[in-house]
């Protein structure tokens, strides 16, 4: 795999300053970069850095800090009481929705990873075959991703409603798709998968279109079957896309929120960490401290995946 052009790009420009003595190195760098260059580079580093710090790191740190308090969102910051780890022990010990929420988040991840993502990739491979009407299928499959959240909630409400829904009318059943806590998570996963498949399909299709056709030709000259061409040649070549698809899947399942919120605000079988955070922090409840503890737990879980991802990407770059 190391002979692929994609991966060599980083090594094409060797670091200029490493081999030269320090004084000379400094002078040479000054000559290389004009004043304007330096200003531009400084700005290009500073502006995004400030944005990331102000919009990502500060709120994240504030959340972690607030999770140790019992702030109710009213009154000045000076009046906030520090309660240490009480919120965390409450979350784990006496908050009934927490465990189902963790389970549901993992179930969500598993369902998207095992079913929806492979299916989306499979559809992308099919559409890549230039079958008739592929543009139509492409649009049809991608449509759920474009639709607004409110509309999606409405569409599935029409299908799943116990008394007036399409599904019960067709099947002649009396299943309470949204109300029965043993059933509703699966019903929602179908809806979530419906959306996810389209997203993955489009990402993967874009990757497939970029594969050098000569690779396929070479494989078929060598007598490889369609299946083995895909698994032995195309799939490894698409490694960068595969990683993106993987990351997108993980992100989507961790931040899953909108569908369950539209349905029943993440209660009664549809608990998700993100919904619990919102229930507690946003709205009249204003349990900012408690909600922040939940958010911090979510952050910690996300960090595990982010660390794994960064480790993989960095190892890739070193090679």
């Amino acid at each position, binding site marked *: 795999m190391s002979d692929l052009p994609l991966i060599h790009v980083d090594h094409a420009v060797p670091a200029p300053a490493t081999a030269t003595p320090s004084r000379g190195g400094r002078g040479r760098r000054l000559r290389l970069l004009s004043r304007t260059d330096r200003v531009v580079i400084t700005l290009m580093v500073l502006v995004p850095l400030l944005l990331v710090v102000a919009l990502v790191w500060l709120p994240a740190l504030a959340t972690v800090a607030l999770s140790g308090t019992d702030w109710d969102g009213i009154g000045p910051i000076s009046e906030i009481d520090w309660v240490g780890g009480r919120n965390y022990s409450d979350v784990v010990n006496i908050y009934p929705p927490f465990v189902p929420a963790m389970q549901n988040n993992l179930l969500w991840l598993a369902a998207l990873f095992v079913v929806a993502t492979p299916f989306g990739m499979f559809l992308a491979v099919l559409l890549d075959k230039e079958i008739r009407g592929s543009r139509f299928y492409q649009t049809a499959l991608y449509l759920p991703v474009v639709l607004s959240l*409110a509309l999606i909630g409405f569409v599935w409400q029409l299908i799943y409603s116990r008394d007036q829904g399409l599904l019960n009318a067709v099947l002649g059943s009396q299943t309470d798709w949204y109300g029965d806590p043993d059933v509703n998570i699966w019903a929602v996963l179908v809806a979530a998968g419906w959306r996810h498949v389209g997203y993955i399909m489009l990402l993967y299709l874009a990757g497939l279109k970029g594969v050098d056709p000569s690779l396929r030709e070479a494989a078929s000259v060598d007598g490889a079957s369609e299946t083995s061409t895909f698994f032995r040649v195309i799939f490894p070549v698409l490694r960068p896309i595969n990683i993106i698809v993987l990351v997108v899947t993980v992100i989507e399942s961790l931040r899953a929120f909108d569908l369950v919120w539209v349905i029943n605000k993440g209660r*009664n079988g549809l608990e998700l960490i993100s919904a619990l955070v919102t229930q507690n922090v946003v709205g009249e409840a204003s349990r900012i401290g408690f909600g922040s503890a939940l958010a911090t737990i979510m952050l910690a879980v996300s960090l595990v995946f982010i660390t794994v991802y960064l480790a993989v990407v960095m190892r890739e770059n070193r090679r």
Partner: protein
Amino acid sequence: MSRPRTEAEYLARLVPSSVAGIGRRSLITGVGAGALLGTGLLAGCGSDSGSGSDSKEVSVGSNQSDPKPKAVIAKVMDGFKTSSGITTKINTVDHNTYQENINNYLQGKPDDVFMWFAGYRMRFFAAKGLTGDLSDVWGKLSGYSDAFKKASTGDDGKQYFVPSSYYPWAMFYRKSVWKQHGYQVPTTLDQLTALSAQMKRDGLTPIAFADKDGWPAMGTFDILNLRINGYQFHIDLMAGKEAWTSDKVKKVFDTWAGLLPVHQPDSLGRTWQEAAQSLQQKKSGMYLLGLFVAQQFGNDEQDDIDFFTFPEIDPAIGAKALDAPIDGYMLARKPKAEANAKKLLEYVGSKEAADITVKNDPTTLVANSGADTSGYTALQKKAAELVGSATEIAQFLDRDTRPDFASTVIIPALQQFIKNPKDIDGLVNSIENQKKSIFTS
């Protein structure tokens, strides 16, 4: 479109009508999150517009977003303009959004006068200093019973609230259905159980029930608690003073568990509107809900709606207490036009304003007893009598206790109970543990 001038106006724009229609309490997160981030910024915009005029105009924050009540508010404000010459500016926000954002709203730049409910939450905001003292306005008001004055009083003994309307919770039914089957109004729990059994035999769902949104079941809990343990226990339980693990609370759940089989099944997937429609379509025999259930009936069917108060369970307690939430107005902490705002509050508490409401809104009752109620429908008259004869009036579970406790503990707990009515001990233990943590903070 012009730039929104207040946060309320900005929030109102964020709610597409398609979403607002999904359910009474469905909230669009984007709005909530946006409000969290945007409060300071938008509040800044709001203050500019105020300083531009001479602050004659009074701004009013309204949560009456349904077409009918919205028109009534507009008429009341018109009446105020005619009588005083002071103009008002109404900022209407979707009911649920308004309630969800109240904390940020009051801490930002709220409207001079805003609509809210009586109960714990009113006293809480008053104690936090987020609303204005209305004792002097109350000195000029007349036509209010002591019960209403008490409901308008904060923990410090001052008044912070002007009641405008209220509605009782009761068991609603269709006269035609009951006449057809010859049902009699039950006055004891045994009679209610017998009636339910008869309805089942007649092919009806005895009691319509829905709890998808989490709050309707609170009404059932409240009324059983009021009947079994009485009003004072309800207030103490809601204030966190009584233990949820006590036998009194367990008895409430036990009684409820006995009644669950005659309630409409699969209630956790159903909205109150759907349950009310099953009553309207004569599929269900009765339904415990607020007077607003009438909204789900056509105009020609209004005369067919009747109700009875939930029957007695313990003769020592009786059946005289009920939930009758009061809606009304409050004054912002630092109103831009304070004198005019107080004039407005005096007006909305007056007989004239109540008369306008009576004329235009058949689904609510006015709080001012001086109002001309000859325009009431038969249903309204009966509802007013019911509340008038009540010995104690509770506000409703989520208005009588801390909102964080009601929404993050009680809603999931009651849904858990409906799913599994057998494990009452585990349920009350879980509630009590969470209550201790929340009420001590």
